[in-house]
């Protein structure tokens, strides 16, 4: 059964990434993050969920439910939006690890 899934697992893990959004100069103001899919590597194009952008929308989240809106240009969000994308290693990449705090998570004994 595992063999059946292996090729799909490899593609999924190589395409997977995590996207975080924060405000320039105010990292303590909050960090919004979600998952994403790497659509293209050259140039790098990533598709992720739009929920993390609502706090940055210049016109507020109501603009998302305006009739007929099916897309909004990138400058619909304020200039203080800072985005970062992180993805898994390829076998060859010798880069150092990044430590991040783990606010709000714990592993209670079941």
């Amino acid at each position, binding site marked *: 059964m595992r063999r059946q899934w292996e090729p799909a697992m490899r593609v999924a893990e190589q395409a997977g990434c995590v*996207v975080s959004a924060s405000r320039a100069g105010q990292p303590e103001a909050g*960090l919004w993050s979600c998952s994403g899919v790497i659509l293209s590597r050259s140039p790098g194009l990533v598709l992720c969920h739009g929920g993390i952008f609502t706090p940055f929308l210049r016109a507020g989240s109501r603009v998302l439910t305006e009739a007929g809106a099916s897309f909004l240009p990138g400058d619909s969000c304020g200039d203080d939006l800072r985005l970062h*994308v992180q993805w898994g290693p390829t076998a060859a990449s010798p880069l150092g690890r990044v430590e991040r705090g783990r606010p709000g998570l714990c592993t209670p004994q079941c």
Partner: protein
Amino acid sequence: AGLEPSPPARHRGPPLEPPHPAELLLLLSCPDFRAHFASLFGSEAAEQWRFASAAREEEVSEDEEEDQLRALSWFALLRVRHGLEEEADLRGPALAVVPLGTVPKGTPLLACGSPFGSFCPDIFLNTLSRGVLSNTAGPLLLTDARCLPGTEGGGVFAVRPAGALVALVAAPLCWKAHEWVGLTLLCAAAPLLRAARDALRSLHPNTTSLAALLPPELGAPWALPLQDPGPLWAAAAVLVEYGTVWGSGVVVAPRLVVTCRHVAPREMARVLVRPTTPKSAKIWGHVVFATRETSPYDIAVVSLEKELEGVHMPVPTEHFHEGETVSVVGFGVFGQACGPSVTSGILSAVVQVDDTPVMLQTTCAVHGGSSGGPLFSTSSGDLLGIVASNTRDNNTGATYPHLNFSIPITVLQPALQRYSQTGDLGGLRELDHVAEPVRVVWRLQRPLAETPRSKL
């Protein structure tokens, strides 16, 4: 949380890439997804439904929850200036996208996302979850692959062709009337990428060229729209309506449907049966038998006023194999709004009394409305049982959709056959007189080792 480069080895394989800056090209939404979302979750059902929030440190206020509901059907296209290009040749073939409407229900799916988003990428980055395509309503898809907050935006991939992108996670956790549904809401990738192409072309001259770089949709034979939306055996599931009550049922003979007593409680009552195919068909029937309230077997049998055509009659099994992969097909959660949902799991327990199976337990996601629906062996397609109930903890009020109980078809088959062939209800009537140990099992009590002795 700050970034602290540090040397220790990563817990899962080679070290992570550091986060790379990116820019927002556009926010996009699939209007058809929103339309289906509104029709399935909007209007009167709205207050019953809640969806998980995107991963965030503080509690979510009502306003923010409203924000997130508005954003639920929105996605974002980003450009990453550096980092990905260097690896372009290291990573296998480019992504391909499965065309909309070509993945049948019950198809295995693989979800890949990062629970809690960027809080713990060392531990949670690109975590996998497996399930099946449970239901579809246009580009709005449902899977029983379990996902957590933070996996919004994660990819959902097909097993065949390996790693073709089917959808993105829109809402990982859904609650209906405070009951965790155990299904994940997805938006199909094909219409989303079409919307992205259109937007890139109309947005700005220098983004037009990017449209050509988005992954293509698979051509034939994958592009052939589905003839039959699901595995053959799934078509045996029917919707049963009795007044305002509805539930599921399964066709066991061209003019015979089995459902639960609590769906169609009264003998001679007239019920409406809606088969999965053809979609629009409605067939009246009447209840020829329903067990009494005192019977642990919650069963009713409906005789149809005319034959059901073109439906594959399920083969009743004679054996049960604990641990085997099973599927439940039922109208839970959405009922009449769209066809039956398929959820997958394993046969987690076969409870026996005197070496006879009297109860089946599975790990499939079973919700209100699935009662009376069929439990199938995924590999053989044989009918294993009739779903009767899931589990609620009376102390906490929590419902556990993934612990549910079915009546083994071996309990019913002889009596159904006798009625089918002779019209004799005798065998079915015996379901009202089952032995005490069986009643004890269905009362979820420990079967008595031996009858307690009087102290006198």
